[in-house]
């Protein structure tokens, strides 16, 4: 993969410049070797400019009506495969009729600055926070530079932070109570690498998002923050229950639903976790509550930082925790909604979950695919990242559900 500037090739012996007629490939769209990228008008006729490799058009640097001189930049592309300069030019389209003795020169591709995409420092920092890879992201800044807003886009007007990376069909990630988008760790990067656009949200009252008083408001805000068009949803714990409710609202737009240790399937929820999280006033106390997640040990420094973050958000999170469970009893039931959903649904549980009882999967509708991760705790998706990435792309279950 490499990011390169495509320049206007010589398309006829006497040609020194050409006027852009029309682009046939849109920014962000992929193209195959030999696809016509755009049509230009030379001193003689209208000529097609073909692609020499497979790739993605990152940006059109000239527009219809622009007159472009020979060897001047026309597009920025992400190309795949080997040595671009050595690539054999395809035969020109019939109507260009070049003289037989003047073979077409290949479009001159110059490496921009290696494979490193142009991005502002703020965008790189945002990408690091999300764990996202900037490669393939469409930059909206100066000279196609990726801005922080391209990575982290607050789409809704209600203060829901959406950390976006990658290009492709959007996969929306909804984390659990007391967590934020960083809790997905490597997953966004892995999904981007697999060709998805990832939208990792901070739930209201978590991370960079403003707090909300109740779950209905939470759902309203998340729904407002989502892009239009089809989506795939991955939810963990509370985020799992929210994903189900969201899928109900969005109807056919959701074509895949993956729930990792979702709440709302059984009667009990370990109150030691919720109450321990809300009451923790020392790093050690926080560490004891977090240990119930089964995510492994954390350093004292990390715990102290986490505690400071938690304390700033505690008021808003207490209200949501109360809406999820009271006195160890869950206040949400998603089994009914799941029965009504038509999209394929997969549920992951860890057999060592200390917060929810994995046996609750027995309450799931029969069409739901269930993956039990032996020995995993309340974060089974972290223990089975490969599985999860594969599930997002897998549509076999749709066929099963459709039967």
């Amino acid at each position, binding site marked *: 993969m490499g990011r390169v500037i495509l320049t206007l090739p010589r398309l006829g012996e006497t040609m020194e410049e050409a006027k852009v007629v029309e682009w046939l490939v849109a920014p962000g769209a992929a193209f195959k070797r030999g696809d016509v990228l755009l049509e230009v008008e030379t001193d003689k006729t209208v000529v097609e400019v073909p692609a020499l490799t497979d790739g993605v058009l990152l940006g059109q640097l000239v527009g219809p009506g622009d007159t472009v001189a020979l060897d001047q930049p026309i597009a920025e592309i992400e190309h795949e495969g080997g040595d671009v300069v050595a690539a054999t030019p395809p035969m020109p389209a019939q109507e260009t009729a070049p003289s037989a003795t003047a073979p077409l020169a290949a479009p001159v591709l110059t490496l921009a600055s290696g494979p490193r995409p142009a991005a*502002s*420092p*703020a*965008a*790189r*920092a945002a990408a690091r926070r999300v764990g996202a890879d900037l490669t393939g992201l469409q930059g909206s*800044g*100066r000279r196609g530079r990726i*801005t*922080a807003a391209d990575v982290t886009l607050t789409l809704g007007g209600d203060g829901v932070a959406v950390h976006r990376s990658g290009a492709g069909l959007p996969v929306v990630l909804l984390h659990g109570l007391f967590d934020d988008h960083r809790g997905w760790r490597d997953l966004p990067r892995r999904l981007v690498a697999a060709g998805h656009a990832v939208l990792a949200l901070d739930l209201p009252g978590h991370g960079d998002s403003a707090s909300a008083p109740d779950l209905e408001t939470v759902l309203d805000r998340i729904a407002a923050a989502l892009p239009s068009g089809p989506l795939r949803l991955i939810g963990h714990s509370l985020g799992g229950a929210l994903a189900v409710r969201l899928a109900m609202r969005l109807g056919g737009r959701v074509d895949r639903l993956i729930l990792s240790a979702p709440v709302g399937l059984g009667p009990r929820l370990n109150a030691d976790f919720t109450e321990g999280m809300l009451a923790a006033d020392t790093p050690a106390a926080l560490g004891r509550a977090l240990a119930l997640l089964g995510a492994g040990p954390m350093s004292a420094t990390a715990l102290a930082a986490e505690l400071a973050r938690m304390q700033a958000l505690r008021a808003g999170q207490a209200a949501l925790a109360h809406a999820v469970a009271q006195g160890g009893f869950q206040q949400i039931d998603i089994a009914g909604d799941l029965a009504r959903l038509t999209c394929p649904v997969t549920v992951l549980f860890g057999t060592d979950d200390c917060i929810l009882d994995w046996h609750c999967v027995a309450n799931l509708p029969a069409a739901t695919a269930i993956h039990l991760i032996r020995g995993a705790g309340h974060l089974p998706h972290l223990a089975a990242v490969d599985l999860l990435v594969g599930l997002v792309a897998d549509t076999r279950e749709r066929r099963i559900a459709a039967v």
Partner: protein
Amino acid sequence: MTETTYRDAIRQALLDAMQADPSVILIGEEVGLYGGAYGVTKGLIDLFGPDRVIDAPISEAAIVGAAVGAAMTGLRPVAELMYVDFIGMTMDQLANQAAKSRYMFGGQIGVPMVLRTQGGTGRSAAAQHSQSLEAWVLHTPGLRLIMPATVNDAYHLLRQSLTQSDPVVFIEHKGLYTMKGALDVDMPDGPWGQPVTRRKGRDLVIISYSRMLHESLAAADRLAASGVEAEVIDLRCLNPMDDAPLIEAVKRTGRAMVVTEAVVTGSVASEIAARLGEVCFDWLEEPVLRVGGEDIPIPVSPALERGSIPSATLIHDTALWLVTRKAPTWAA
């Protein structure tokens, strides 16, 4: 609260300080009978006499050197350098003597003096009477550096300078002397050493000082008409300087521009841009821009002089380009 000029605010500060503290003396060329080349010390010799308002021969090095000695021995001298351009002649006394005495002598001998001077363009005074040489001072540890932009700051920063234990270089701007503004002798614009935000904005931060603050504010007004909200910060104290407010603002907006009248290479703007680049790197959407004087001596021709330093238009155009990517007519 009174309405007065920048010149009279400085005069008032000198007068009040001399009344409050009998150790304060003035020494410089034409500070007495003439009343200062720009009229700042007018009448002070009548109030305080020639022992405290001392007309000196045209001997800049010795004027500053004498101030150093007076400060070492209990007085609090205000030496006046008629033009900051003359600082070259005093540089040994300033940079090697005043600045370093406390350190070299193990903390025994401080030099609590103020060097008042003025700089800047605007009068076609040519290459040796128009410079902005604050960077020369900034490069010398041991010197404090103050450049007031407002009437209130002209008063308070000078009063505060006259309470410091170390040498302060206080650089006024010749183009601001007749500027009118509010003076509240009880209320400084901000604490010693801290920048003041003169205008709030969300899209970019314009950091400036001295006369360029006013060009920056004028540019910000015009930017607002285009829907771009610029935050404008006045540095005031270049050393000591608390850069925390700059950093906070840049982290908030992701875009910053530092405006100076001095030649841009090796300028205060360069220093600030470097600091912001270091500290705010992960918050920056664009490079921190320096807008300053061209890297040339100041030409005498009025059109060339004007063209060699930033204007509100240049600041506006550059900021608009930075934020909205709308290129100005002068884009190369």
